[in-house]
């Protein structure tokens, strides 16, 4: 391994410790990451924008702090990157959409501010499905992103770039957002750890909205501990987001090594009742066995309403999106089609700026909210949501976490499901439960599919604001089986 490769191979906390101990510098880490992005990313497509100069400046500032013996946080000087859904002052923010081409926000998202306050170095903005709508990153308005394990396959979505960049060692950690599985599914497909926190744990301020009542910011990293550190960094109350919680943030790292002994793990009968690819089911069952060996108790639970979750989700999310995306009208930012009249300007701008999946969801959502249909669709979907949450609340009366697959199978091939939106939507079947119920959930790599050698993720869902238990459970597994390896080097 070259010295640069050794640097990019460092995990998040290792990199931070190396800067603090002055074994390396933030600038060296940053240069190594930028060089690797330059070399690897043209074939991968994880980044939409690389902010090299800004990163170098931040790295120099971090090095100056290290020279003075200052350390803002364990992240100080470590290169990271964020999904292109996060507003970054003066830096292109497209949400993966052509309609925001050229838009440079005048402000930073709360999570971006917190990363900066912790001293992290921002490498750039990551590829994603347009407006976070998708499960394969193929809906990016700019370019597809590929899976580092197999470039013919998708990295998952919508935070495909966030997962691929971590897996391919382009960044030591990233931020994504998860509305129906958009952190967990790509994390599973790429063999990294991804956490969707409790709704309200991380501020949504500055995060381009997809479905406001479901969107949540979360970290992706190579190890559970790194994800815990990133989450602790960005979590916390923000008065600019009225849905953000004022509950104090737990010290996830302090309880991380608590093990799985005595942990009560609920296994929903409906989640392992067929429909999974054999390799995925085998890996998930093996993971559950491992927990048992670690002293955890497996308890069968039932989530009878989770089967209606996907229908409810595909009403609620498009309904909110249809309203959230109304502001892209060509008047104030992004692209504007030259037109003589107002209607023409709206129509042309939105027709040119939005991709097919976004248009599909705007139409579905507009329909679901329209007069005469609201009760039958939106209101009923909200009732399902309540029932889904009730199922989980009941499960948590007898268990501490609920475990199951993240996705029905491993990363699929690019183009495989593009023509069949319903098939694509079913990729979210296990993940949307946590979004509808506003609960924390994560994906931790639990092995490889025997047939393809591709990573499989185990999903853990926790009680509201009990990210500590989730992370501790995931870490117990990771400690037992070892940190998931990097994909083979693709030249």
């Amino acid at each position, binding site marked *: 391994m070259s010295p640069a490769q050794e640097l990019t191979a460092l995990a998040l906390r290792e990199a931070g410790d190396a800067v603090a101990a002055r074994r390396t510098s933030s600038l060296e880490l940053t240069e190594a990451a930028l060089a690797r992005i330059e070399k690897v990313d043209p074939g991968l497509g994880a980044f939409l924008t690389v902010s090299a100069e800004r990163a170098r400046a931040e790295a120099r500032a971090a090095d100056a702090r290290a020279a003075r013996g200052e350390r803002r946080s364990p992240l100080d000087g470590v290169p990271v990157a964020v999904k292109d859904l996060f507003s970054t002052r003066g830096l292109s923010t497209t949400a993966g959409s052509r309609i925001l081409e050229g838009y440079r*926000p005048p402000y930073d998202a709360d999570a971006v501010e917190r990363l900066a306050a912790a001293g992290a170095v921002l490498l750039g903005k990551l590829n994603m499905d347009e407006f976070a709508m998708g499960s394969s990153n193929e809906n990016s308005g700019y370019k597809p992103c590929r899976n580092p394990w197999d470039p013919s396959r998708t990295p998952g979505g919508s935070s495909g770039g966030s997962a691929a960049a971590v897996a391919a060692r382009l960044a030591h950690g990233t931020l994504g957002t998860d509305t129906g599985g958009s952190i967990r599914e790509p994390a599973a497909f790429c063999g990294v750890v991804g956490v969707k926190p409790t709704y309200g744990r991380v501020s949504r301020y*500055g995060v*381009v*909205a997809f479905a406001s009542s479901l969107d949540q910011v979360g970290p992706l990293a190579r190890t559970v501990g790194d994800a815990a550190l990133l989450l602790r960094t960005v979590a916390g109350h923000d008065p600019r987001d009225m849905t953000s919680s004022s509950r104090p943030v737990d010290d996830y790292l302090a309880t991380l090594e608590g093990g799985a002994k005595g942990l009560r793990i609920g296994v929903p009968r409906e989640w392992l009742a067929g429909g999974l690819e054999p390799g995925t089911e085998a890996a998930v069952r093996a993971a559950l066995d491992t927990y048992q060996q670690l002293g955890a108790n497996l308890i069968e639970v039932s989530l009878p309403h989770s089967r209606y979750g996907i229908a409810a989700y595909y009403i609620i999310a498009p*309904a909110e999106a249809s*309203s959230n995306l109304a502001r892209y009208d060509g008047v104030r930012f992004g692209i504007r089609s030259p037109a003589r009249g107002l209607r023409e300007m709206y129509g042309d701008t939105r027709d040119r700026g939005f991709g097919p999946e976004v248009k599909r969801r705007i139409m579905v959502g507009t329909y679901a*909210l329209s007069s005469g249909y609201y009760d039958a669709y939106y209101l009923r979907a909200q009732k399902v949501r309540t029932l889904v949450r009730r199922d989980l609340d009941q499960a948590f009366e007898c268990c501490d976490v609920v475990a199951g697959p993240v996705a029905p199978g491993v990363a699929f091939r690019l183009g495989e499901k593009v023509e069949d939106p319903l098939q694509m939507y079913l990729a979210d079947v296990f993940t949307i439960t946590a979004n509808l119920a506003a609960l924390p959930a994560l994906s931790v790599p639990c092995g490889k599919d025997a047939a393809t050698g591709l990573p499989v993720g185990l999903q853990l869902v926790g009680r509201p604001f009990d990210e500590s238990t989730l992370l501790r459970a995931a870490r117990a597994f990771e400690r037992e089986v070892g940190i998931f390896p990097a994909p083979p080097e693709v030249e």
Partner: protein
Amino acid sequence: MALADFQVVIGLEVHAELLTRSKIFCSCSTAFGGEPNAHTCPVCLALPGSLPVLNQRVVEMAVTVGVALGCTIREKSVFARKNYFYPDLPKGYQISQYELPICEGGAVPFTAAGQDKVARLTRIHMEEDAGKNVHGVSEDGASGVDLNRAGVPLIEIVSEPDLRSADEAVEYVRSLRAILMALGVCDGNMQEGSLRADANVSVMRKGAEKYGTRCEIKNMNSFRFLKAAIEYEARRQVEVIEGGGQVEQETRLFDPDRGETRSMRSKEEAHDYRYFPEPDLPPVRVAPELVERLRAALPELPRARSLRYQKDLGLSAYDAGVLVSDAQVAGFFDRALAAYGSGPEAAKKVANWVNGEVARLANESATGPADWKLTPEKLAAVLKLMDAGSIGGPGAKQVVEEVFKTGADPAAVVQQKGLAQVSDEGAIEAVVDRVLAASPAEVERHRSGKKNLTGFFVGQVMKELRGKGNPAVVNALLRKKLGGS
């Protein structure tokens, strides 16, 4: 006349801009005017990722109005999105309230044609104002958008269809406006759009039980236009029915230049606003303790104040009504009266000046008591100078006008402008003698019974004294010299 066979039925939706310092969902200033888009931020520009944060003062003001109007205050109310596209609506939706508004029920008292009446309220809800489109901002004729007003807090006060004439509608709005101003939640400025009314108007044959099809009339920014628009619309609807047609449910716009309403959009073209609960804002919780605190802090309302003025100060219903229609003016009156004296005579005098000369000067300058250089104490001082005989009525008017403009001390103005009244009997007597000596014919005619010539002599004397003679002294001397009257 067919109109007399019909009953007009009116319900009003009044939008009142609240006097908060900052907008409803961000900390931008609500100040009127300013360079276009000077009072904006990522939130009220609806930049991607921005989120609304509710200004708690808006809730308090809405509750205050609700308590004053006898509404039921919801412990839990919900904001909703009203979705429609327009360039002055940056998010593509207005944050308003729909199914669960903050106030329900209640009523507005008003007086029309000398009768005390009440119109019931359906609801009061909170919402944000839109910006405005400005046309022809550049040489190529392009339109611009000014979002300074976007996000200014509004309450919408919706009445039941309880009003039965254009005059009742006007008096309802007048009364509501006075209440909102007394509560200090709205400046009541209809010209600047701080208070706007939309009217739902229908007509039915007298004696009918079922209301006719209604039309919503928009764009009436004065009492005069409100009255004209409703009267026009009622006539129009009666003509349609009398002509054998049917009134179509639609939204109509009042054109003040032509005094007409004209169709803006039909029922078929009506927007489907696709209301749904605003996911970015948790439900608004109003604790009973807050309601009680705001109830206890309510100021005296216009109607109570008017009754008190009539009962305790002996003012006429008219004078009292004019004073209380602007709480600041009523406050000015209170202070002027306190500085001047007590009793019905003093009150009547102060009220006459406040509603007369002072109101005239205020109208001319389009100002309110807060802007006036004439303090209540200075007005009282002018009245006292009059009582002391130092100045006469016309002089007093000149002093008030000067003080109103400059804020100078009234006594100094009297001095400076030479307005002091001549009360010295010796000086006046000399003039009276001169006038009588110069007009022997008139004196003769007066003595032979032409008593209306008294005015002629007073005029001549005053002319000699350049208007500054004390009228009481002049009259008394003339009476003495001409022999009784």
